[in-house]
């Protein structure tokens, strides 16, 4: 009997032995090609559950990727918590236009995290609700054959959106307890959103925590400033979970697994063999074909070569190393799939 895409992805993230790994993008993948093919485009697809579901399923419908995924950016939680957002256009993603709270470590002026909305209100606000509703639709239309993946934002990253990331990072050096207090206050919102995605039909929650990358935080700071809160918000969920962190995550791969997630997603900045060695089968490895090069700017041949390198190294799920750029050529995504599925 032919294995369904859903069964293959679930087996892969549980590190079962397979004839080949699945090709699936758990980070964002909603390209211009997918928008044209599906008829569901940005910016409407950020706020309309049906359009979000249609575009999220286009990765399987039009490119043969082996999972379906929504939402499409890392601003929906910040918006639901009160940050002003520019919704962008068909070719540009939503952008944060300001912050919610005063947090100035240079002047030692800190708001307290005591006026945040009720979690139930948060879950029913704007695009957080949209994404939860989209999960229900995707589960209904594609859930039998494909894994449904719901994306959300990590607590340190979301906290940076509310407070100003640069100021939050500054305070990691000067007032680390203040930073931790805020991330601790935000983590329950991340957890509630993740659980709501699962309850709505998601098989996997993929959390992106880019502001905790080694380009920003010292690896030794990761467990205290981000990891312990990711454990609460993602690792403790009752479902499959994938943690994505951008950049050269090699020094923090063990800490990423310490959060209790099912698997981790890493960029091409970690050579595939090195990632596999460090991961040491502690969980699934997802990645790590480069997004700018070769997916966005390279050739199909270069994409195929990178995909095979990740497969040969032993990645469990072959995927883009980060969010797939919106302008990525259709042929490059097809090459990613074909290199693995044949």
């Amino acid at each position, binding site marked *: 009997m032919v294995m369904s895409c859903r069964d293959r992805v679930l087996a892969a993230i549980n590190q079962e032995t397979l004839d080949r790994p699945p090709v699936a993008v758990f980070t964002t993948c909603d390209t211009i090609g997918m928008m044209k093919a599906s008829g569901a485009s940005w910016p409407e697809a950020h706020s309309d559950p049906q359009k979000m579901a249609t575009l999220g399923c286009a990765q399987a419908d039009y490119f043969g990727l082996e999972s379906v995924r929504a939402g499409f950016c890392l601003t929906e939680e910040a918006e639901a918590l009160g940050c002003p957002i520019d919704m*962008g256009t068909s*070719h*540009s*993603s939503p*952008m*944060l*236009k300001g912050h919610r709270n005063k947090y100035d470590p*240079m002047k030692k002026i800190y708001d307290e995290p005591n006026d945040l909305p009720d979690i139930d209100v948060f879950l029913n606000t704007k695009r957080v609700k949209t994404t939860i509703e989209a999960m229900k639709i995707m589960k209904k239309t594609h859930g039998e054959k494909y894994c449904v993946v719901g994306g959300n934002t990590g607590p340190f990253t979301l906290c940076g959106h509310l407070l100003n*990331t*640069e100021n939050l*990072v*500054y*305070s*990691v*050096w*000067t007032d680390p307890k203040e930073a931790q207090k805020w991330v601790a206050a935000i983590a329950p919102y991340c957890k509630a959103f993740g659980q709501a995605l699962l309850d709505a039909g998601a098989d996997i929650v993929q959390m992106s925590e880019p502001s905790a990358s*080694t*380009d*920003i*935080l*010292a690896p030794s*700071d990761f467990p205290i400033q981000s990891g312990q809160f990711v454990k609460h918000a993602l690792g403790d969920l009752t479902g499959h979970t994938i943690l994505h962190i*951008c*950049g050269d995550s090699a020094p923090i791969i063990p800490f990423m697994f310490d959060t209790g997630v099912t698997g981790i997603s890493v960029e091409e900045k970690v050579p595939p063999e090195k990632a596999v060695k460090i991961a040491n089968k502690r969980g699934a490895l997802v990645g790590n074909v480069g*997004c*700018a*090069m070769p997916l*966005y*700017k390279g050739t199909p041949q270069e994409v195929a070569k990178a995909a095979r390198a990740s497969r040969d190294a032993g990645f469990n799920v072959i995927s883009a190393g*980060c*969010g797939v*750029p*919106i*302008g990525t050529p259709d042929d490059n995504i097809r090459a990613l799939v074909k290199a693995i599925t044949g």
Partner: protein
Amino acid sequence: MNDKKLLKELADSVVACDPNRARIASEEALKEGIDPVEAINKGLVIGMGVIGNDYAEHKIYLPQVLVAAHSMYEGLNVLLPAIPKGDLSDAKTAITAVVQGDVHDIGKNIVKTMLTAGGYIVNDLGKDVTPSSIANTAKETSVNVVCLSTLMTPTMDSMQEAVKLINDNGYHKNCIITIGGPPTSEKFAKEIGADHRDDDAQSCVKYVNSKMKKEVK
């Protein structure tokens, strides 16, 4: 404290990430009659150079760099107003910007800091800056260096457009264009007609300094 010790204190205050200490040392330097340009170049800038090198070598991370930069600016806030205006007329100039569509500006801010530490007068255009605004400002203000940054892959196109407009308006022959940010590469820099791409701010300033001597008229 003698002059040598004061200059060392200025540098040490930045390395120690201590804004108050940097401000106090700068006030002391002026009180002792040290030339403010010397206090900057042989004090604060030396300290920021140590920080920049340590950051490039992953000996320290962003939180420390941000606090060290704040320390340097605390000192500059005291020392810069004490420099006679004529003394800055020959200073090299730069603009920094995060290109349109992107609001992630920490990397750009570090480049701005290291350029300032390198003696450049920096006009920071901020984030989400349109290609035309970058090209027009470069030409209208006759800058020596244009530094463009993006964290996101889709906005690489905005970077390409900004460089194209600087070429189209004929100003590229008068300035150096450098780019940076995780999705960029040296290959991409060549492809879009920029002069250079760097992994870190310290290397960017070293490159720009080396080219300034040769190319900028």
